[in-house]
């Protein structure tokens, strides 16, 4: 499973479970749609840091880096390259 798919599965199972079937593609707006709220982001951050052994610097903690699966994948790529 690639990074995008793992993030998608996490979002589907942990952030929107029990809310019916939702399609999430790589560009689906996660924040504006309410899929990620203020507590959901903490859950997502914990997942990302644990699953991908990523250390996310404070300067990277911005909505732009988490608003879609594409944005999250780009963030992880950046962290890996650094």
């Amino acid at each position, binding site marked *: 499973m690639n990074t995008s798919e793992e993030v998608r599965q996490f979002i589907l199972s*942990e952030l929107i479970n029990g809310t019916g079937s939702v399609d999430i593609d790589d560009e689906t707006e996660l*924040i*504006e749609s*309410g899929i*990620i*709220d*203020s*507590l*959901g*982001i*903490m*859950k997502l*951050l*914990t997942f990302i*840091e644990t699953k991908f052994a990523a*250390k996310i610097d*404070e*300067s990277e*903690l*911005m*909505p*732009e880096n988490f*608003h879609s699966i594409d944005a999250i994948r780009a963030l992880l790529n950046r962290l890996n390259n650094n």
Partner: protein
Amino acid sequence: MDFKTTNEQDLLANNIIKFARNELNEGIEQRDANSEFNRREWHKCAEIGICGLTFPEEYGGGNADLSTTVNCIRALSYGCQDTGLVLALITQICCGLQLHLFGKDNQKEKYLPPIISGEKIAAQAISESDAGSDVGSMRTTAIPHPNGYRLNGTKMYITNGPIADIVLVIAKTGQSQMAFRNLSCFIVTKETSGFSSETNLEKMGLRTMQNSGLIFENCDIPAEQIVGNEGQGMFIFNEMIEWERILMAACYLGVMQRIYETTVNYAKTRNQFGKPIGQFQAVSSKIADMRIKIELGKLIIDKAAWQKDQKIRSTVESSIAKVFLSESLKKICADALQIHGAYGYMKEAGIERDVRNSFAATISSGASEIQRNIIAKLSNL
């Protein structure tokens, strides 16, 4: 796994306890009665490095990790009977931390040294009359304006509000329906035109700590006063709140230890029916429960602090620490008063002040109900 503190940590804690007992407790009854903040004691704490414990030396800080900082705060609240002062200092540390973690270099250079030295007092302005735990409901706005932002709104119950020189204000900067994306953090100094603080609010407890409303009326803030980036406010808040909950829990632990020792001593020396009251199971069970709460509370605080030191997210553990220590504090204070009987009910004993103070613990920095929501939400339900 090593539960032992280092010799340096022990030495530091012992020095802080001695300092607090010698320098901070005189006149506490009067200051509590008068809702009086004592700047002299504030500066004494700053002079020994409390405000700067966790900051880099280049800004005048002590470069301590959070585990050491927690140990120091615990020692301070154990020795110092003025819990309002300790909590005011924690607010100062948390404001500095936000600047340290998210601020630009020029902001750190300008604001961290006076925060660390205690010369300037800092406040964190988040709560509003209709936006307490529900941060997203806040109405304070920061609208783009030539050269920066125009701030309008009223904050409520702000710790250090009436005495603050520097205020970190969370305000809405966007039009998104999702507040999570809308919030930004700004540095406002007390000289800023349009900023004013209301008078100190009379409280049930923690009366030496100053709280008030803060008013921002067409307050023009230069763009360089934004902390981090626009829209980063909720992230800054989330990070700060973990630190705050751990430090507050450490403060509660120190108070609990002090009350526990006072109560054990009383139970050993107060005789009724021909023997010390501590020999009666009804009393000794309460004391055993106090000890259980202290030991378990220490473990969760140490774990949460260790996580932060390892750069591991501590959302759940810091919430567990907050809810467990705050509720334990209330219970221990109430039981201590009960064991002290009529004497405990008298102001002279000093316990009633701790009882009054303890009620804020389960309300501020996220009420117990909110902590449980957080823990549940992050428990894969």
